[in-house]
């Protein structure tokens, strides 16, 4: 199984500011996928963004972007122009060839008005 590490249990950001969540992973595979999921208080997991390891270009979805450093096995998420609705727990996950996801422990993001 792959290992995913999120070293920041909690992050706080002022509304309209930018916050970056860190994630590192460990894999022996050459082809894999990485994801960031958001889990708001309703507790439904929502896909935020995904990155294919073979793509050098960092994925972007509106205000969400990633910094994918393949050699360092790092996959950070940047939330720009933070909004109150961004408050949630964010999970980093990696996908392995057996079609299973490995999740990190999560980072709770609080947005201050």
């Amino acid at each position, binding site marked *: 199984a792959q290992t995913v590490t999120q070293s920041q249990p909690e992050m706080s950001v002022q509304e309209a500011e930018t916050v970056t969540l860190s994630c590192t992973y460990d894999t022996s595979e050459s082809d894999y996928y990485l994801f960031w999921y958001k889990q708001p208080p309703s*507790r*439904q*997991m929502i896909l935020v963004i995904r990155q294919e390891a073979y793509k050098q270009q960092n994925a972007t979805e509106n205000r969400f972007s990633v910094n994918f450093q393949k050699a360092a096995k790092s996959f950070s998420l940047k939330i720009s122009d933070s909004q109150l609705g961004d408050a949630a*727990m964010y999970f980093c996950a990696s996908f392995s060839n057996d*079609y*299973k*996801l490995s999740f990190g*422990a*999560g980072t709770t993001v609080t947005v201050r008005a």
Partner: protein
Amino acid sequence: EADIYQTPRYLVIGTGKKITLECSQTMGHDKMYWYQQDPGMELHLIHYSYGVNSTEKGDLSSESTVSRIRTEHFPLTLESARPSHTSQYLCASSGWGLETQYFGPGTRLLVL
């Protein structure tokens, strides 16, 4: 995007009762998953299926069982619920050749 449903959303039940958590998806996805998640904690895979009549145990040992008789349906059963089973259970699915998993709303189970 997948439409995936879970029922019930909340369940409070006494020790020793048999329960079945329902999960269904309407996108024809072949792969389905069950995760267990305690509040504020990470997700742990407890069961998965690659298709009809295929079921496998996940990384976290669980006393629950699953079945996959139809592509769209992946129920999870606890024969005798215990307080240690209190948790949230999340169902997910993904399509063939697609790595993205889509999640249902979850079932919060409380065993008294």
